[in-house]
């Protein structure tokens, strides 16, 4: 199958320091990949390079076979590469319904319309209710985001991303900051993600990684040192070295 | 060549006067995060006090300057306690509304108390007249303003970067809650910073009075200039403000020499160009 998402020989240096050093990976529809790595491994830079917020020094990013290296962040979203944020970035004054509706309308190219209201657009409302219903947010759909719990905000973050109907979803620590009692819901939501969606999850929590991912990529010092099945990752000597070498600093990495 | 040199001198002198008057605003806006549109009003109060002391009471210039600084602080401290304290951390537009309100009040009161005429601060004989630079003459008080500007820049830089108070101030600015948890009394830090900013405003008002004469509308008339200078420099940055003042002083002076009828265009186009290149001000970019 043709890869839906590809990164080829991506390089970026700050000053003389190579923060992303010759990274290549490829994902097919339906892939569940976890990207892990000790602190300072260059995960954030990698995400920024992939999403188009940073320009690489060299290398290439492709979505569904199309090179998007010269395309800006907005263009990549429109081509199906959507991300969620590690710290929720939602609009405090708006309701979950408005969040999802905005994403749906934007996806359909209707977000610039000067008249009408999504509440009066049946097709939009159906999608909004369906999506929020799946994530258990339907009762809250008309409350302000600032009034709902953090765990629910994380779910909404996911809902917004899904409403964009991505081909590739980049999840940045989707369960970060959520109290233990609520993580179940999020994991359930992750498990329910569309089957043909390629998901790249950046995560510290190894339990989650093992439950979710079919494939694990380990980034250390800007380079991929491991790309394989979850069962093999802890056995790999290079991974052990990368983690144990900085174990004191990365206390919450398993 | 002579002309170029001459313009350079004018630019330096004008830039430094701008610096002396504006730097207090850079402190309130950058370090205390208050859009203080009443800055000009405090400068004006300083000018009035100095004028009253030197002209009507016949006090010595130096004494009048000190009186202006401390007098203005004495007037400003209750305003800080009663009004400014309420708007720390408030949305910027709220701060704009409050400080414009304060400015209107001060203008009204100044108009009532001092009348609408121009007030000057008589210079001591040492600062009167001109100094011959060989190729041209320059007013002595301008040299005085340049020296004051440099002294203020150095003093402020030292206070912020090198003293214990500066550390506390920067800590309070970065994270007030954290600073408070570490035992910094942020209220006092803010009050002192505010007093310093107001004192600088008053000082600038007096030193700059030869160029920007004191009258009730002073508070609004030059506010835009101060605001522009501070944000082009990058609020809160002493070197940024200094560079901005010199740069804008140079552009203004050169523009007014070469094409006075388009002087305003030059100045504001330059401002737009600078901000488009350095969207966070000259110093904002340098930091990263």
């Amino acid at each position: 199958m043709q890869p839906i998402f590809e990164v080829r020989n991506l390089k970026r240096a700050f000053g003389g320091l190579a923060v992303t050093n010759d990274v290549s990976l490829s994902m097919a529809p339906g892939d569940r990949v976890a990207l892990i790595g000790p602190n300072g491994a260059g995960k954030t830079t990698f995400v920024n390079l992939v999403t188009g917020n940073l320009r690489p020094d060299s290398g290439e990013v492709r979505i569904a076979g199309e090179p998007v290296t010269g395309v800006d962040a907005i263009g990549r979203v429109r081509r199906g590469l959507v991300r969620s944020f590690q710290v929720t970035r939602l609009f405090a004054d708006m309701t979950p319904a408005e969040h999802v509706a905005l994403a749906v309308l934007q996806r359909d190219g209707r977000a610039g319309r000067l008249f009408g209201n999504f509440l009066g657009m049946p097709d939009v409302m159906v999608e909004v209710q369906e999506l929020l219903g799946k994530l258990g947010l339907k009762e809250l759909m008309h409350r302000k985001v600032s009034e709902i719990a953090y765990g629910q905000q994380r779910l909404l973050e996911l809902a917004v991303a899904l409403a964009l109907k991505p081909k590739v979803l980049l999840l940045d620590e989707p369960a970060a900051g959520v109290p233990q009692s609520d993580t179940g819901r999020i994991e359930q939501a992750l498990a329910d993600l569309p089957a043909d969606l390629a998901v790249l999850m950046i995560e510290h929590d190894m339990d989650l990684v093992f439950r979710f991912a079919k494939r694990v990529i380990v980034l250390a010092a800007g380079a991929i040192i491991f790309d394989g099945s979850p069962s093999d990752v802890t056995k790999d000597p290079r991974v052990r070295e990368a983690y144990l070498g900085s174990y004191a600093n990365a206390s919450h990495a398993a | 060549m002579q002309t170029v040199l001459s313009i350079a001198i004018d630019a330096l002198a004008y830039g430094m006067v701008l610096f002396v008057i504006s730097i207090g605003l850079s402190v309130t806006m950058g370090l205390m995060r208050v859009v203080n549109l009443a800055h000009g009003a405090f400068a004006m109060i300083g000018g009035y006090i100095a004028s009253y002391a030197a002209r009507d009471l016949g006090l010595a210039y130096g004494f009048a300057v000190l009186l202006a600084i401390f007098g203005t602080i004495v007037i400003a401290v209750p305003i800080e306690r009663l009004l400014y304290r309420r708007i720390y951390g408030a949305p910027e537009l709220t701060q704009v509304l409050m400080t414009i309100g304060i400015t209107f009040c001060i203008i009204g009161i100044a108009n009532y108390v001092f009348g609408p005429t121009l007030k000057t601060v008589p210079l001591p004989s040492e600062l009167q007249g001109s100094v011959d630079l060989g190729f041209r003459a320059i007013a002595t008080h301008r040299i005085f303003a340049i020296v004051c500007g440099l002294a203020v820049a150095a003093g402020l830089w030292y206070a912020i970067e090198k003293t214990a108070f500066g550390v506390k101030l920067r800590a309070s600015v970065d994270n007030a809650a954290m600073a408070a948890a570490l035992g910094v009394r942020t209220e006092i830090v803010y009050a002192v910073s505010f007093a310093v900013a107001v004192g600088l405003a008053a000082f600038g008002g007096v030193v700059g009075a030869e160029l920007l004469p004191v009258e009730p509308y002073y508070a609004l008339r030059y506010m835009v200039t101060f605001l522009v200078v501070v944000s082009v420099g990058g609020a809160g940055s002493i070197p940024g403000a200094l560079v901005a003042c010199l740069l804008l002083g140079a552009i203004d002076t050169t523009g007014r020499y070469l094409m006075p009828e388009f002087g305003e265009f030059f100045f504001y186009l330059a401002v737009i160009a600078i901000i488009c290149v350095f969207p966070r001000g000259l110093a904002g970019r340098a930091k990263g």
Partner: protein
Amino acid sequence: MKRMILAAIAALAMSGAAYADTIKIGVVGPFSGPFALQGKNFKAGIDAYMALNGSKVGDDDIEIIYRDVPQADPAQAKALAQELVVKEGVQYLAGFYFTPDAMAVTPLLTQANVPLVIMNAATSAIVTKSPLVVRTSFTTWQTSTPIAKVAKDAGVSKVISVVSDYGPGVDAENAFKAGFEAAGGQVVEAIRMPLATNDFSPIMQRIKDSGAEGVFAFLPSGPTTLGFVKAFKENGLKDGGIKFFAPGDLTQESDLPALGEAALGIQTTFHYAVSHDSPENKAFVEAAGKAIGNPAELSFPSVGAYDGMHVIYKMIEATGGEQDAAKAVEAVKGLSWTSPRGPVTIDPESRHITQNIYLREVAKADDGTYYNKEIQTFEKQGDPGLAALK
């Protein structure tokens, strides 16, 4: 309300005969903001006139209603004028410091049946906008033209003109140029500088580089004149022998204490000096000084207002208190009297004031204060600006 009913009954009873009433005059001017000083002078002139001539014309009481337009704002001026006419029922409009404000009001006059007496606004064209406009101040052309002759007579043949870049500044430049070139002089360069100029050193450098023997300058009264005059001295132009000519806006009396020594010797032409030596002016200055509180704040708009009141009083006399704008204006055409500034006439054709223009020099009085000392008189000057319009 009660009084209105009474008045109505009285009017019916006396059917047309004159009866005691209150005649209202609406005065629009800058009473707050950056030009508050000029507005204050309007009020001082009006108060002085009423103090000296009583607040009654015939049996009618005169009431002044002030409205504030802090800075040129034609929309506001027009709204206030409308309110004065329609709501307050004023029979006369007066004041107006800024030209656009006056311009905005002129279209109302005929319909409102109200004359407009301009006490300051100095652009020539205003009087042409309505036949009901009378002006008792001056025009920039009027005060700037004689100085050209003064400059030529002083033996200066090359002059650089430096004016603030707005309507009156451009008027002054044109007036001077016309007058100076007619007298055989040459304007080597004409610089227009932004109104909001704080630092005049670069301008001074320009003047120096131009090689002119004299400079003609126009700046509006107020803060910037101080910087200009000081820069002229500090940059060594004054000591370098460059002569300084200007219309009198530059050295208005209320600015002189601030200008101080730097202004000493500057020659200006203007229609009025507070120091003018005449019994009429003595009485005026005393009354106006009392009205304004601080006599040092007295300046030229006060005399425009004073004479404006004179014209309005004459209009009321002529109409017997009836509201008849055309008749009122007709009555003062050609009116001559001795104003505190000297002999003046309302030109019947243009309805603008014909007056003496004086050459003055800033001098130091015995008590250490500075004043404009009149040294030469150009008699009966009309407004050359109107001719230039045609």
